[in-house]
């Protein structure tokens, strides 16, 4: 862990008031993120990853949502901050790369103009300087003929190009923290790798911190230094990426690892799937949320909720009554 903490998340709980009752999408999540560090947040669909990243951004729909706990970004509290206060953070301290580049660019505005926005409004550049900087940013994210592309509309760019533009927009304000929420979901596999490598590269080059939210452990394996594994809105295991891959203790983490395809497997190997479905967040079991799907579950798991406890290695925590003995499996 880095000595300088950029982001401190403490006991963050996000609940939604729905017609069916109160839904806890993020449940008492805590972690720290150091400067220049990259963190992976992994979990299935519906595990609260996206809500967590939006909560860290301070983005909530206006009604029916309540957030408790604390998100300190550079010492500034995000939870409960006014829109004006958050607007000061957005763009320059923290920026976001969205899931789907098809919808995160305005279809009727030239891509260059969409980058200009931050430069002119937040950094107060004049038109010419903003244009030059926007072209520079487009070049940095690997867009060929950047000066021409400045005047292109999003529909004339491919999905991968668009995501590069989205990244350029996020980088425009030189943020200290970049939040990438499943940045490759809408893209081809080959393009996915390019975009992830690009994110990795700019993160290192600009010395930013990055949170990479994904359901794909393969994505975070080589690109993040630490991992947070989420299930049903809670952190079930966290530690350095190396520890989580090599010495994971939580059966859910293992199940996630086993469900990603491996080149080393003989051909025609059936891909292991996690049995059952993610739990209904409106009707969580009394004990461990993963118990109904877990091969190791005992009566205790079904009745009592495990809390995070240290696993031995520094910073490695897990929440399980029947942890896997180490070492298990081999790192992917």
């Amino acid at each position, binding site marked *: 862990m880095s000595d300088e903490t950029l982001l401190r998340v403490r006991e963050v709980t996000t609940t939604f008031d729905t017609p069916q009752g109160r839904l806890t999408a993020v449940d008492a999540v805590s972690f720290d993120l150091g400067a220049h560090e990259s963190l992976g947040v992994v979990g299935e669909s519906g595990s609260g990853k996206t809500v967590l990243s939006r909560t860290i*951004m301070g*983005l909530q729909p*206006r*009604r029916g949502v309540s957030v408790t706990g604390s998100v300190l970004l550079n010492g500034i509290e995000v939870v409960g901050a006014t829109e004006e206060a958050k*607007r*000061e953070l*957005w*763009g*320059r301290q*923290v*920026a*976001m790369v*969205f*899931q*789907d580049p*098809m*919808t*995160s*660019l*305005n*279809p*009727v*505005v030239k891509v260059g103009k969409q980058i200009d*926005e*931050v430069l002119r*409004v*937040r950094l107060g550049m004049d038109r010419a300087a903003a244009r030059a900087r926007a072209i520079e940013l487009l070049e940095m994210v690997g867009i060929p003929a950047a000066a021409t592309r400045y005047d292109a509309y999003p*529909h004339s760019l491919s999905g991968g190009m668009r995501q590069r533009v*989205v990244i350029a*927009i996020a980088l*425009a*304000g030189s943020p200290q923290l970049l939040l990438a929420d499943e940045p490759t979901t809408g893209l081809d596999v080959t393009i996915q790798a390019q975009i992830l490598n690009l994110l990795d590269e700019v993160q290192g080059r600009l010395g930013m911190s990055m949170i990479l939210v994904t359901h794909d452990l393969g994505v975070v394996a080589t690109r993040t230094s630490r991992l947070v594994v989420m299930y049903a809105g809670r952190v079930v295991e966290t530690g350095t990426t190396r520890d989580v891959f090599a010495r994971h203790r939580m059966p859910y983490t293992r199940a996630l690892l086993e469900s990603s395809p491996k080149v080393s497997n003989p051909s025609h190997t059936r891909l292991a799937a996690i049995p059952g479905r993610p739990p209904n967040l409106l009707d969580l079991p009394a004990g461990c949320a993963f118990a109904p799907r877990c091969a190791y579950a005992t009566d205790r798991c079904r009745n009592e909720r495990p809390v995070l406890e240290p696993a031995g290695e520094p910073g490695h925590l897990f929440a399980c009554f029947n942890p896997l003995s180490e070492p298990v499996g081999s790192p992917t």
Partner: protein
Amino acid sequence: MSSSLELSELVEEATETADGRRLGVLFWVCVGWLALNLLAAILANVLPLENPLTQNYNAINAGPSLHHLFGTDDLGRDIFSRVVFGSRVSIEAGLGSMVIGFGVGAPLGMLAAYRRGRFDQVLTVLMYVVLAFPAIIATIAILSFWTPRTLLKIIVVIGVAAIPLVYRVIRTATLAVATQDFVVAAKVQGASDTRILVRELLPNVAPIAVSFLLIGVATVVTLEGSLAFLGLSVAPPTPSWGNMINESRTILQLNPWLALFPSAAMCLFLLSLNFIGDRLRTHFDVSEGKL
């Protein structure tokens, strides 16, 4: 030689396919007709037209001739000149009331769709209450009592009646884009609400607004015509298309020209507006699939 010829043919064909997004000849004919109407209405005073109020007792109910292109009415007034001057009333009513309708309805609709919440709920219910009144009956009732009738009053009444309609269309159009990621993306870049409304949402809503504006003008022109036919528009002897059609009613057999020309003028004017509005709507409807 032949291969290069084929190539040029191919290129031509390709360009033609790309022209699928062109607006077409009919569109430009309509634009030209509207422009002609507008110009004539603006320049009516300086054009070599007869005074629309001057009565020529030597030519009453005369048919079209070189002297009176469209003929004269039962008071010997020149129909051509009255059609041109009459277009002023229609155009002023159409544009004026749409300025009111869009001036109030469009910003409110965008704001409601963007802010949502209580503001949106209250405003939408309020608009729907206004919308529940049959507009034409309400307009007739108000104009019957609000005398003396001037064009300005007619514009205000129709314009206010148009506000909820514009509000509803613009609100729906904005809703479709306001929930998309690029709005959130702009927000987390630190863009202010005003900036998001003007820079992000307005360009997306503008095409729909423009086509609705054109069709709105057409509707108001019809409405003004109906009011005039009922004697509720500008008072005679000021010519308006509706007034003229109304006047022709009793002498239809004697002088069909008096009914024909203002009707034709109004019909072509409306047709052009509707066609342009419709064509623009399909033209701006750029969905991924069509590219």
